[in-house]
Every structure is written in structure tokens, then in C-alpha cells.
């Protein structure tokens, strides 16, 4: 569907006004999954509504997959029903008077048979909807509703899928399941997705391209690994879960100790066993609070992963803790006390050893295009 990696899936340059809120957004994305990330009120949903045609920009241009949906200069403004974008709403918005089957077929039957890309049974199968088909939306759980909403949108054979915080009304316990469906969808169907979220874990797990939004503007846009490792974006990406995102490859399995050895930028990283074949690409996140620094090579320590590197940047701030960006071949972020920075004389250029206590595995495969190249 989208073969050419250099052509953007998505180009947006719009200005819009919603009451007192001004939105001026400009970005383009080549990634298969583009995440719009920001705090609530940053304008993420507004951008998605502008794309879908449910709100109208004052001026600008919206291009999806080479197709102009809106262009104020040329007087183009396609109505929502002609934009061919699937929209999965935060609150699912299933039609309460129709069964699940008729909800799923609502959009499908409005697409000419020759233009239907996905088979009804295939989507039902992919999303595990078979047991739900004859039920009414009111009797479904949050996760089931979202799966039906995803299926309903997919069956319109959209050129791109918009997902606005699809996990917001899903129980915490079922979120992983829905995320799994999103991953299967992008891998098996190869459909470009715009995914709105304010939860950084979801974004890191799913996204190829990340668009950081703040107060109606794009603060930064680019590959996930690249943006997540920038200290200056911390205020937007969030402090608590600060960490470096690293693209790695599975190198070897250590059966005796139930460990898996990963490789990134010439470094060896040992993590609890992951069931993946050698050579599999994987994205890991090393949280800043799990990284400590030492000036001398640590000896006789329980920490398995120690990397030598140089400090690239010391974050600003006057609180108790600071973030330090260390270049170990790939960027690594450490959270240390300001006191330690002072006592150890940590400054850009200082040679340090970074000790990594634990590693969060975010994605078992980097399937989309763009991110693997961007992050390396």
C-alpha cells in the first residue's frame, strides 16, 4: 500500500481555533505508526478531528498518503465521508441500536465491493469478534467495545486509521490485550495509523514516528528513539518514566541463567530471558532511575550491565535530582542527585561507567519502517 519510504504518509500544516484555544500544527510523518503525544489539552484530539473532517481549520493543508483532504489555498475540503480515514474514538461510539454485526457492517456496506480491502471474516478473526457478533454494544466491556470500534473502522477500507486514546475507557487489565491487537493490525495489515495518547509507555511500545504536542503546537517530531533521548523534551515526555529508548538486536540466549543477550551500538546488554530468535530486532527502554553512574569501573557488583561512556549533557534544574545524558555508543539517561553531580564533578566530557539495574522491554519486534533506521 505504501511502498515508497521517502514519501510521507502524512503531511499536516494547519491553523485552527477552538474557542479561546489556538492550534498551529505542522508535521509530516513517514512512519507506519505515528503517535501524537502530549498532556491533555495539548490539542491532540483536535488534530485528529481536523484530519477526519469533523472540525475545519482556518487555513492550511492536510495530505494523507499523497491525497489532499484539505487545502485552504485551493479551496479543497473533503467531507468526512469522502476522506476514507478510519476513526477509532476514545469512547468507541458504537451505535446502540445496532448489533455488533450491524455496527461492523455499517461502514463496510457503504464502500463499493471492488474497493473493499479487508474481508469481513478476516477482521472478525483478527480481532476475535466472533463471539460478540449478535450482541448489543451496551452489553460489551470497554475492551470489547474498542475491538468492535477498531473492526468497524477497518472494514471501511480506510487509507489510514486514526486512534484517539483507544485505551482510555478500557480496564487497566485489558489494555495489554487491546495493545496487542493494535500491534497485530500494524504487522498483519500494514495500515498506517495515527495514534493519540498521553501514556508514554503506549507510545514507545507502538510508535515509529513520534509527534510531541504542547499547547496546540508541535514541540518536536521524529523517530521515537531520537526524541525520547533528548533531555530538553523531558518536560513534555514526562519526568517520572524518563529513560532512554534503544533499538537492539537479540544476540544469544544464556539458557543456564535464563538470560538473553542483546546488542546495541557494540554493547552487550543482558536481560531476563526473552523468547525471540537470534537476530530479532527489539526496542528496549532503560529508565533513568535504573541507571547509576560511577567514575571508576565498578568491581564485584551485582549489576550485570556496565557501559563505559562519556557524559554528553547534564540536565538543568534546581531540584534534588538531575538527568544526565551519557553517550555509550547510544544515548543513555541516568537520574542522579544534584549532590552527586556536584561531588563527582560530572560535566560534559567526563568519562563515566553507567550501571543499568533493569531493562524494560517495550516491543518484541520493530516491524514498521522508519524507526529502525531513525533510531540507529
Amino acid at each position, binding site marked *: 500500500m505504501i511502498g515508497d519510504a521517502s514519501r510521507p504518509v502524512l503531511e499536516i500544516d494547519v491553523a485552527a481555533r477552538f474557542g479561546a484555544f489556538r492550534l498551529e500544527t505542522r508535521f509530516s510523518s513517514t512512519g507506519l505508526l505515528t503517535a501524537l503525544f502530549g498532556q491533555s489539552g495539548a490539542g491532540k484530539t483536535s488534530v485528529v478531528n481536523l484530519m477526519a473532517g469533523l472540525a475545519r481549520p482556518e487555513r492550511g493543508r492536510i495530505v494523507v498518503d499523497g491525497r489532499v483532504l484539505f487545502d485552504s489555498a485551493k479551496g479543497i475540503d473533503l467531507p*468526512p465521508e469522502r476522506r476514507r*480515514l*478510519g*476513526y477509532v474514538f476514545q469512547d468507541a461510539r458504537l451505535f*446502540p*441500536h445496532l448489533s455488533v454485526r450491524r455496527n461492523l457492517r455499517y*461502514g463496510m456496506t457503504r464502500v463499493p465491493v471492488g474497493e473493499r480491502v479487508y474481508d469481513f471474516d478476516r477482521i472478525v478473526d483478527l480481532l476475535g469478534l466472533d463471539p460478540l457478533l449478535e450482541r448489543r454494544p451496551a452489553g460489551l466491556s470497554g475492551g470489547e467495545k474498542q475491538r468492535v470500534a477498531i473492526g468497524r*473502522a477497518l472494514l*471501511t477500507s480506510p487509507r489510514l486509521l486514526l486512534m484517539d486514546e483507544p485505551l482510555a475507557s478500557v480496564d487497566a487489565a485489558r489494555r495489554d490485550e487491546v495493545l496487542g491487537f493494535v500491534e497485530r493490525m500494524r504487522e498483519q495489515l500494514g495500515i498506517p495509523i495515527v495514534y493519540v495518547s498521553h501514556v508514554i509507555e503506549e507510545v514507545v511500545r507502538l510508535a515509529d514516528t513520534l509527534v510531541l504536542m504542547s499547547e496546540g503546537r508541535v514541540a518536536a517530531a521524529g523517530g521515537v528513539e531520537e526524541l525520547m533521548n533528548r533531555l530538553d523534551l523531558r518536560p513534555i515526555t514526562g519526568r517520572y518514566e524518563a529513560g532512554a529508548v534503544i533499538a537492539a538486536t537479540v544476540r544469544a540466549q544464556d539458557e543456564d541463567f535464563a538470560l538473553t543477550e542483546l546488542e546495541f551500538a557494540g554493547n552487550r546488554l543482558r536481560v531476563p530471558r526473552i523468547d525471540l530468535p537470534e537476530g530479532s530486532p527489539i526496542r528496549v527502554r532503560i529508565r533513568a532511575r535504573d541507571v547509576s553512574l560511577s567514575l571508576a569501573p565498578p568491581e564485584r557488583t551485582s549489576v550485570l550491565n556496565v557501559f563505559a561512556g562519556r557524559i554528553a549533557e547534564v540536565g538543568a534544574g534546581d531540584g534534588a535530582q538531575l538527568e544526565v545524558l551519557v553517550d555509550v555508543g547510544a544515548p543513555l539517561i541516568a537520574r542522579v542527585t544534584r549532590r552527586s553531580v556536584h561531588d563527582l564533578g560530572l560535566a560534559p566530557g567526563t568519562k563515566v561507567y553507567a550501571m543499568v539495574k533493569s531493562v524494560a522491554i517495550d516491543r518484541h519486534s520493530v516491524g514498521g519502517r522508519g524507526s529502525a533506521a531513525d533510531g540507529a
Partner: protein
Amino acid sequence: MDGQTPWWALSPLETEAIALSLRVALWAVLCSLPFGIGVAWLLARRRFPGKAFVSGLVHLPLVVPPVVVGYVLLILLGRRGPVGAWLFDVFGVTVVFTWKGAAIASAVMAFPLMVRAIRLSMESVDRGLEDAARTLGARPLGVFFSVTLPLSAPGVLAGVILAFARSLGEFGATITFVSNIPGETRTLPLALFVFTQTPGGDAGAFRLVVIAVVLALVALAASEALARRVAARTQS
């Protein structure tokens, strides 16, 4: 009214009045329903210049004396009235002093009640669902018939029942516009009025009162039952 028939037997005049009332009310509701739905949708979903004026005009029969409505209809739809003359010239139709006129008077008087019930119901339909339908490829008219109208069915039903009941009871506008002609425009309330003005008419008046109450109760019960079915269909 002779001694041989039981007290509850209806005289031909009374039966006629009841049948006429039902026919007038039925046609009044049937013919005004599409307009009622259209106006309710305009008021619930559209912003246009003069909306307040339209809303006021629709609700006018609720607040002005029915006689005024009847008189205005008489002026507009009478043989020489601007609309009435056109109707006669083009279609050869006369409405004044006929049961059709009675249906028009009833429809106008019941219109605000019908519009109000439907409009409130449409306003409560989540616009998000209509947006969702658009993104799924439905055009505005398709959205209306597949989402908005089915979801406001309870209100449409309530509007129909209210309008029907109001039509059955219409008096002032009817008598002013189409007079009180037995068999043509003498509906149940008009017949009842005649009985109350006639010496010895008490028995007939009583029978009609009973009929009126029974009709109202049946209409209410039917609307309750239908509303429950509709609610079950849209919610569970």
C-alpha cells in the same frame, strides 16, 4: 334516546362523531409527522438565521387562543384566502367547512407538542455518534435515517401520541375554521358541546365523556407499551 335502547348504546350521531374524530386525528398526525420531524431536526441540529422566529411560529398555537388560530386559518385557507384560492384553482380542493379543514386545524394545534417531543429526543442523541457515522462513510441524509431518527424513536412516538390526543380534543380552532357541521366537521368535542347546550342531552354527553376518557387511556397505554419496546431495542 327512546326507552327501548339501553343507556350505553350510542346513537348514530354519536358514532359518527367518534369515527370522524378518529379519522381527523389520524390524518392530522400522519400528514404533519414528516414536517414535525423535519422542523424538529432543524431546531435541534441546525443553526440558521431566523431560527428563533421559526421556533416562535411553531410554538404559537400553544399560547394564542385556539379561536385565533381558527380565524387565521379561515382567512388564509378560505375560498378567497391567498392559500385557499390557490388550492381551489390548482387542485379543486376546498378545505374550509370540510373534515379536511378539521384535520388541518387539529394538525396546526398539535404541531408544537409533536415538534417539542421529537426535538427534545433528537437533542439527546449523541452528536458523537453522528460524527462517527460520517467517518464511516455515511452522507448527512444517511446519518439522519440510520442514526438520528432511530435513536430518537421514543421521542417521535411520544410526539405522535401527544399530537393524536391533542387532535382528538381539538375544539376552538376547529369550530372557528370549519364550523360545526354534523357528519362533516362535528367531531367528538363539538358533539359533546352540542349535547351540553341541548335540554336532555346529559345522557349523550355522559357517553361521549366516557368514550373520550377511554380513548385517551388506550392511547396512553399504547404509547407506554411502544416506548418500552423501543427502549429495549435501543439500549439492551
